[in-house]
């Protein structure tokens, strides 16, 4: 939404999310490309066990709010189509 429209998130919270991500990348000495490579490797590993919906999956780095621990967390939302028979 535009500057005068309705917004879900206040800019302070957006700044914090961006800060966490940029510091994570700085500290890990990684680049956005490396994050993409990490994602594709994770998909590769999981896909060999589970039939996943690659179009719907979402892997991102954000605040680790669920566990209450400090620092960012790697969060993956991977819809499962079914188990693979091995």
């Amino acid at each position, binding site marked *: 939404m535009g500057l005068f429209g309705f917004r879900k998130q206040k800019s302070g919270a957006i700044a914090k999310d*961006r*800060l966490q991500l940029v510091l994570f990348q700085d500290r890990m000495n990684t680049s956005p490309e490396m994050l993409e490579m990490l994602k594709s490797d994770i998909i590769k590993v999981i896909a060999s066990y589970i039939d996943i919906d690659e179009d719907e999956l979402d892997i991102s780095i954000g605040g680790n709010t669920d566990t209450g621990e400090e620092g960012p967390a790697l969060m993956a939302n991977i819809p499962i189509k079914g188990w693979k028979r091995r």
Partner: protein
Amino acid sequence: MAEVIVVTSGKGGVGKTTTTANIGAALAADGKSVVLIDADIGLRNLDVVMGLENRIVYDLVQVVEGICRPKQALIRDKRYDNLNLLAAAQTKDKNAVSPEQMVKLVGSLADDYDYIIIDCPAGIEQGFQNAIAAAHRAIVVATPEVSSVRDADRIVGLLEAANIKDIRLVLNRIRPDLTRRGEMLTLEDVTDVLAISVLGVVPDDETIVMTTNRGEVAVAESGSKAGAAFRNIAQRIVNENVPMLQIDLEEGFFKRMKKKFSKKG
């Protein structure tokens, strides 16, 4: 033996020089003997912020080159007798001084003063290495912006790599009105990501602009909120047990209106 503190930030324009001048003045007002060293060779500013630009005879590079003795180059502050400035050279560049020379210079002053505070240039190159070489502790100045905090994080890493263990944050230019509305990074947001302890918070305050225009310091103004914050920071440098001054986040439009109405009623 003087305590040697470097004031640094990585990013430029976040208030390093203003912080250095105000903390120095507050320590001097508290009876401490203080030397401020402007390590920003080629882009000196601390002299102007303190209103001492017309009194410079010798500078840091001339001291290092042996043209004069360190004490000859010290400029006494206008207001505080026990506050001294060693100005940076304006016509040389950062490579005119080495970290070893800075250590030697600071060592030659350390016996005679309580605090030596070094104003670090922006960036992480030679000037930064010079400024931190002699420091025992560091104050990292940041503003509540992603770019500033990011650079502060990098600086903390470099300070730790240089074996400076006492690193404290000054969060400068907080806007309580924006913070209250959720439109600015809060102190908690910043300390969540930067794993360093907080020395103090300073509100964004127009008295900083006004005092700096005149070549004076905000700590000398009793009504300045930023001045009060810097006085508190100086107290916390001397004594860790002094509680941190809290910035009143409620001091907004509604509170002012409430005050007005309650006066009338």
